[in-house]
């Protein structure tokens, strides 16, 4: 059972910053689904989407692949609206868990009000986080194998995508220090997550926000993880996407909202294996980083919920020397992936049909009939179209 946590003062703004792969999706889904119950208990949760999305991107002047960056006014208007609310507010976005510019943290604090803001981050053990994080990347556009990716994370530097994306979200010391420049330590809380207690995070939120126990208990399998086998299929599809140079917008529609979603819905068929544990070669480095994180959490003077020792990997499990790439996948998962892509096709078709019905009809003047066109013009036009269809001749 989770430790008892004092509720925040009424009128606080609780900003949950993730980071990624620490159970954010589940808690956001609960907060969003229960937003009416929250309102009855005097807590506001924005009702636009599961989490802050464009608002956060606006502040960070960033957008995920395939989307455009929203203007800063999107955040400014949103923050002004939140500040105008007298009641307790809860906000959540794991995007703020990877701020790398102190002025951005400063702006968040200034815009939401230093007097009301409490920041909450979740620390999840690295040995649990790493496989999840790689998977999350695979659901994006990652083409590195798990093993290659781990090499970059633990042996690489800031010039490498894998290194950057992992440590900007999970270098707790750097992240916390940044917030502590603009916020007193008693306004910064770290929850030590526990993979064996799926109610921990929801309990913490319920207590901080003064909500009835159980209100935020996680529902279904939000953002379910993929099997190692399905992840490998997806990685190869990512490779193909990159090799073909297909656009990011298509990746989003077909992969993220199609193939990935369908694979998640299908669950893990009996044949397919969960992600493997960490290979032996990386374990000393993981232990070292974990120990450093525990020390940092203890020394920063912030509020800590849970036992930081839980962040240390279990001793004496040598693991496989290297990660084996699955050479087979269940037919069920493969079919789910195919069907997911097709689902995107049919969704696309529906939205296109709506767009099409709004389009103005072509002019009534039909012009000369086809029979009036001479054979040479016909042949020329056909040739032109054929050339246009050839790859690389655009």
């Amino acid at each position, binding site marked *: 059972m989770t430790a008892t946590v004092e509720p925040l003062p009424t009128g606080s703004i609780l900003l949950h910053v993730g980071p990624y792969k620490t159970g954010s999706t589940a808690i956001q889904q609960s907060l969003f689904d229960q937003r009416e119950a929250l309102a009855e208990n005097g807590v506001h949760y924005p009702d636009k989407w599961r989490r802050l999305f464009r608002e956060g991107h606006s502040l960070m002047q960033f957008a995920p692949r395939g989307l455009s960056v929203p203007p800063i006014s999107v955040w400014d208007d949103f923050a002004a609206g939140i500040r105008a609310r007298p009641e307790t507010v809860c906000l959540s976005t794991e995007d703020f868990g990877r701020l790398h510019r102190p002025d951005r943290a400063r702006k968040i604090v200034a815009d939401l009000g230093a007097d009301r803001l409490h920041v909450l981050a979740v620390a999840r053990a690295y040995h649990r986080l790493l496989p999840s994080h790689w998977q999350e990347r695979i659901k994006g556009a990652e083409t590195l194998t798990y093993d290659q990716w781990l090499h970059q994370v633990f042996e690489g530097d800031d010039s490498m995508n894998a290194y950057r994306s992992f440590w900007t979200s999970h270098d707790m010391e750097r992240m916390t220090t940044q917030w502590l420049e603009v916020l007193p330590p008693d306004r910064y809380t770290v929850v030590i997550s526990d993979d064996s207690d799926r109610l921990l995070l929801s309990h913490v939120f319920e207590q901080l926000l003064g909500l009835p126990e159980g209100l935020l208990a996680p529902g279904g399998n939000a953002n379910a993880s993929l099997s190692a086998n399905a992840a490998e299929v997806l990685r190869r599809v990512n490779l193909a996407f990159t090799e*073909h140079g297909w656009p990011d917008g298509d990746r989003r529609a077909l992969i993220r909202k199609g193939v990935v979603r369908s694979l998640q819905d299908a669950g893990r068929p009996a*044949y397919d294996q969960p992600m493997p544990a960490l290979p032996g070669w990386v374990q000393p480095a993981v232990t070292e980083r974990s120990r450093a994180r525990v020390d940092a959490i203890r020394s920063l003077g912030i509020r800590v919920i849970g036992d930081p020792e839980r962040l240390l990997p279990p001793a004496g499990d040598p693991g496989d020397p290297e990660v084996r790439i699955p050479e087979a996948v269940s*037919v*069920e998962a493969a079919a789910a992936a*195919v069907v997911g*892509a097709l689902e995107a096709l049919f969704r696309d*078709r529906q939205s296109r049909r709506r767009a099409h019905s709004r389009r103005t009809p072509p002019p009534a003047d039909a012009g000369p*009939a086809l029979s009036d066109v001479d*054979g040479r013009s016909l042949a020329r036009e056909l040739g032109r179209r054929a050339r246009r269809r050839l790859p690389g001749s655009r």
Partner: protein
Amino acid sequence: METEPGLLPDRAVLVHIGPYKTGTTAIQSSLHEHRAELVDAGITYPGRYHRQMRPSWGLLGRSRVGESDVPLREWDEMVDEVRAAPGRVVISSEDFSSARPQHVRKLVDDLGADRVHVLIVARRLDKLLPSAWQERVKSVNETRTYDAWLREVLSVERAGDAARVFWHNHGIRTLVERWSTALPLDRIIILVNDEADRSLQSATFERLLGLPAGQLTPGPHANTSLSMERIELCRQVNAAVRARGWAGSKKLNAPRRALLAGLRSAPLQDFETTIPALPAWTGPRLEQLSEERARSVEQSGVRVLGDHALLRYRADPDAPDLGDPPRVLPTDAAAGAIEHALAAMLRRGESRSRARKDRPSPPAPPDPLARLSSREMLREVTRRQAARLRRTSRSAR
């Protein structure tokens, strides 16, 4: 029984009607590949494609799933080409095996009652059944497992569409009956396939058409079979397609074809299996049906090439049950299938967005070509060419 197929008359039109899964792709690919030699020998293989699919669909009023029927005009255009041909003609489309009596009558009338010879290939049932099921899974959204499909096809009642379709296309007696309503029996040829002789069909075509022996070497296309694991992927996708109500949408045609190409693109893994032998429960029924089939051929009264006894079948009473479909397939094959399907979907999107860019802005002077699809334009070109051909051939006569 006739073992040496005699040369067909000078202006004979040999109509090869398959049926499906009797080696049609191989012979069609070979005929297409050797067009130049055929022309030299005064033989016409109409059209430009590896078989006369679209003309046959024009006659039968068929189409690809979800698309409009191929117009009868495309059949008529081929008829013009056949009529104009000075020497022997060979036409091949397995879809003719599904022709109904009215189509058979029209085919014979159009191509010339005095010229048409029909060639039916009879294959042993135990070889035909696995291919036929696999083809259905690949092409017509079949969702039955192999076992369920076999039970339906081999049932005494022959109820259900699987049985109806199979026996309509493959029943020797029904095929002969249908074609003999429009043709005398001596113009119907049954070639009994010899599963041990891969060159039998090409050799038969060579002799019927008067080509030098050995000329019809294999072409580049073969309708290769997939492993049971990969077919199972198709079957599960079919089930999902049906469950979601997408069956019959033409949007699926391109991704489905691409999916199959993707599945073929990955090398076979050690753990993969071919379609298993027929289980023991099919034995007695299949022996009986095969015997009936051999006798149908023997007593048909048509020209029979090869030995009807080759259609008899001896079941293995110990053949194991089929068990459950495979559960696993190679990662390569799965990823290849998805990649190819995605590529097909993106090609669609690309041509669409280009088409949007190509649309003329309203004030521009109306150009009839800009509004036309390339297919419409091609059809017009083909129509004009055919008309020209008709004019030239008439004046040549």
